[in-house]
Structure formats: C-alpha cells, structure tokens
C-alpha cells in the first residue's frame, strides 16, 4: 500500500494543517483525509502544491509499504 507521510513532512517544516490547507487551496477536511491515509487517489496538482509548499520531493510524502494481508477498505 501507499502511505502518506504528510504529518512527518509538516512537522519537519513546522507548518500547521490549517496553514498548509490554505496555501495549497485545499479544504482542511480534504487535507485531513489525505493526512490520515483515507484518500483513494491524489491529483498531480495537489502533489505539486504539496511539494512546492513543503519544499520536498513526492517520495518524501509518498511511501510504499508491504500490505499486512488485510484487504484495503
């Protein structure tokens, strides 16, 4: 599965969820979905905005981890 390490990058950059949501023009609810690994897909435009504001690469936000056998909901 793909894990979103957004909270780690946000902590590294000392940026709050509200501020980031405002900067990348996303609603706080949608950012929360993303941050909590509930999203089913991410747009390139969102990824682009995240990388721009967090000054990182997509690989810093997205990480592949082995499935633990449970089916994704």
């Amino acid at each position: 599965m793909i894990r979103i390490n957004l909270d780690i990058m946000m902590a590294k950059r000392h940026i709050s969820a509200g501020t980031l949501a405002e900067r990348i023009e996303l609603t706080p609810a949608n950012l929360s979905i993303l941050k909590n690994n509930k999203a089913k897909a991410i747009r390139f435009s969102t990824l682009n905005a995240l990388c721009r504001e967090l000054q990182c690469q997509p690989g810093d936000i997205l990480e592949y981890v082995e499935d633990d056998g449970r089916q994704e909901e």
Partner: protein
Amino acid sequence: MNSSSMSKNMKGDLALTKFAIIAMSVISVGLMLAGPRLIHYVMLRQSPLFEGRTRYILLLLGGYVSGFLMLYCLYVLMGLVKRIGDGDVFVRANVNSLNRVSLIILTAAVILLFLGLTCITSMVAVSVMAAFMTLIVRVVRDAFLRAVEMQDELDYTI
C-alpha cells in the same frame, strides 16, 4: 444541449414519471376493487388445469397479491424518483430501491407464471415479460452500483 435545458428536460421527465406512478397506483387500486368482477370475465375463458372454485380463489388471491406487490413497487419507485429529483442520483439508497423493484417484479413473474400454468394461459406471456423486465432493472441497478463506487472513489481523490 446545454445544462439548463437538460435540467429542464429532466425536471419534466421526473414530473411526468411521478404523474404516471400516481396514475398507475389509482389504476392498481381500481383493478383490485374490481377484482371479483374481472375474474368473472376471466373464468369464461379456457383453463389449462384448475376449474371452478379453486380456479376462482387462485385467480383472486394471485390478483390481490400481485396488486399489493405493484403498489409496493410504485411506492419504492416514487422514493427513487423523489431522490433523483433532489439531486441524490448515485447513492446507495437508489441501488437498494432498484434491487427491491427487481425482486418485486421477479416475485410477480413467479406468481403470474403459476397462474398462467394453472388458471389462464395468457398470463405466461405477462410472466415472461415481467422476468425480462427483472433482468433490465438488475442491469440498471448494477450500473448505478458501479456509478456509486466511482463516486466514492472520486470523493476520496484529493
């Protein structure tokens, strides 16, 4: 065709469908009230199996059960049309409604097939049509289900 004329067309279609559902409900109630009189005419025709009182009771019972199924089906359809009118098109409730409608039609098809084989042969044709209608409704239900899944996925695309 622009979106406003499409929306106007859709509203017109929904209003017409609601009118048709109400009209069908009135007709169904009327047919149920006139049940014994109608069966009197049916009894004049040839029967493939049962005769006399057994045939009369089976026809009356089958007619009433089918009538109540029809009314329930129309009630479910009215709910479906109302939700679509409110803008809730690809939602689970609509999939459930279509599933219920298909099961009601299937039940009616079985009842009509029984009546067709035992009391009045022409009912077999109606039963076959109802069975075909069941398949069509199930295809529409499956399409709605796929659309609901796609909508879910879209809602979680950030």
